[in-house]
């Protein structure tokens, strides 16, 4: 059995999906490694994925719950609202963070062996997605506790919302991961960037919290907003603006394409720079 290959200077950007597919097991191994390592030597282990959003929800409910419930019609108990936001948000914040640092933290591997580089930031995001799936369990509990009535469409909405967030996260993640290899400024920008983005996303408050039309436009244009709307659309009494969802989806796809292009354009030189 022989496989012909050719090595030459890079001319055009090619996604090379066949190569990604051939190396599909590596997605699994990198994700698996990160998950394993993350909770090694912790007493609570996986419980942390549930505890983190839960504690945050508790705090938000304590300090903001009343104000937000009174001022804007969210239609569902605030803890449910906040936790739904936190869960989706965590995919994004931890995903972008992990992905952006993934190339640098795996530099020793990148410099020593070849495999499609895209696997690295994607696996980092998969870790966040797995965390989300675990945390979803506690969310379902909360739905029962508060007796929130849900529409059957929720089975469709939640995965769709998660997919939009994942696409956005990948877009930002790839862009930042590639930039981080060259410009280490990125790692100082990320915490600030993620925190800032949380304020212009309907994570712990709905879009209707502000009357300022400019602020509302920003909230709507944010590719994450539609995902949050969609996620909450499964609760009876919460109205989804599908136009927003569509804008979000378009925005996230655009970001994704931008991310892939930049990543592929620069990936050949990662080993020289990292």
């Amino acid at each position, binding site marked *: 059995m022989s*496989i012909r*290959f050719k090595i030459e200077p890079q001319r055009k950007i090619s996604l090379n999906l066949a190569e990604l597919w051939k190396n599909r097991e590596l997605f699994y191994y990198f994700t698996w490694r990160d998950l394993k*390592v993350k909770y090694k030597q912790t007493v609570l282990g996986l419980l942390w994925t549930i505890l983190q959003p839960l504690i945050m929800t508790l705090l938000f409910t304590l300090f903001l719950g009343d104000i937000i419930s009174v001022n804007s019609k969210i239609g569902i108990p605030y803890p449910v609202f906040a936790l739904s936001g936190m869960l989706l948000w965590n995919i994004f914040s931890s995903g972008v963070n992990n992905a952006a640092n993934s190339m640098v933290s795996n530099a020793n591997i990148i410099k020593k*062996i*070849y495999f499609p580089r895209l696997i690295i930031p994607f696996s980092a995001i998969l870790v966040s997605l797995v965390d989300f799936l675990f945390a979803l369990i506690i969310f379902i509990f909360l739905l029962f506790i508060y007796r929130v009535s849900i529409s059957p469409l929720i089975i469709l909405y939640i995965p769709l919302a998660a997919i939009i967030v994942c696409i956005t996260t990948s877009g930002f993640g790839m862009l930042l991961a590639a930039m981080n290899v060259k410009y280490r400024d990125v790692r100082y920008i990320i915490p600030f960037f993620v925190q800032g983005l949380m304020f212009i996303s309907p994570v712990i408050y709905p879009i209707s919290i502000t009357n300022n039309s400019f602020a509302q436009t920003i909230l709507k244009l944010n590719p994450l907003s539609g995902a949050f709307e969609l996620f909450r659309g499964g609760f009876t009494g919460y109205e989804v603006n599908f136009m927003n969802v569509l804008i979000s989806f378009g925005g996230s796809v655009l970001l994704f394409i931008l991310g892939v292009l930049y990543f592929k354009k620069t990936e050949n030189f990662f080993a020289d720079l990292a």
Partner: protein
Amino acid sequence: MKPILEVRNISKQFRINQEIQPYLSLRDSITNIFKPKSRKEIFWALDDVSFDVMPGDSLGIIGKNGAGKSTLLKILSKITPPTKGHIIGNGRVASLLEVGTGFHPELTGRENIFMNGSILGMKRTEIIKNFKDIVEFSGVEKFIDTPLKHYSSGMQLRLAFAVAAFLENEILIIDEVLAVGDAEFQKKCMGKMKDINSQGHRTVLFVSHNISAVQSFCNKALYLKEGKVEAFGNVKEITGLYIQSQKSGELANDLSHLFKNKRAKIQSISFIGESTGELDAFSFYRSQIIRLKFVMNILERGKYNLSVHFKTILNQMICNLFTPVYELNEGIHEFSMEIPSNFLNDETYKMDLFVVDNASIPIEVINDIITFEVIDDSERVWFGKFEGVIRPDCITFQKLDE
């Protein structure tokens, strides 16, 4: 027969400023826009390299530090693209530029076998199929479910080698990995790799500073010099050429710019004797006495002595040596140092130099001031490397009952 690897006109260019800075910052990038382009110095790490490798060949790649050996391997393993030229290959390539790539200290031995194997390009089913053999080969059965961080470095290495030994790729690229690890196990690994090779399955490309390992393991050799192919062909011929090429010259001339102090500087370090080499990587035979000459320029009269940290290339300290304290007048003074023959191992060594004021305060410390290599020229029974940082023949054995 068709070559398994056709390397054609491969060139690789680096910009010097990339080499110096580990990474860029946005600020530098922005300020660079306003600077003239000519600031970037271009450096060809590889320059028009072409050669063919036949199926079943073991090719040893030799050359001094900075000759482009590692860059060539990185291009062959697709880690970095060439600037010019192309390579056509016929087979799956596995590269071992490092042993245990992807090993994670928190994962267990078992988990690391899967992680490392899969990074090296093995399929999960292949790893499962070979798992028992890998564990047995590594000899760490007892600790297979212990996190890697509790392994000794020797055990980690064994595990890493064991995974690599079960690669089934047609082309194997190995970089200097045999410079570390215990001899017994290396012998086992080399044996296994050679086995596969003699069956005509595998082609091996092998970089090493250990000329005797290259001689015994390879049938062909490629000698790189300053990014160009100096010679290519039969291993005996090429390695002979390489050793002979170490012509006379100074080990390190004009060192004074390294010294910032205003009292005492080392001007040069050179080798006294018949065979000497060029700046940087110096080669000596093990059977040779190594005499070094230090030329010292004293700018301020005083009591001085020199101190040397003698180390291996892996920063393992061998010993700390120093001269007596001398009362020195302004001007040039010379000192010599002698390392007996058959004392060092075949290894690359380096020295840190301290200029000390009156045996108490170091005035100046220059790390890695010289680097040199010792080549084993003795008749040897096996091609593996002897363990240890030195190999003194003055320690002898005798049979007493005769």
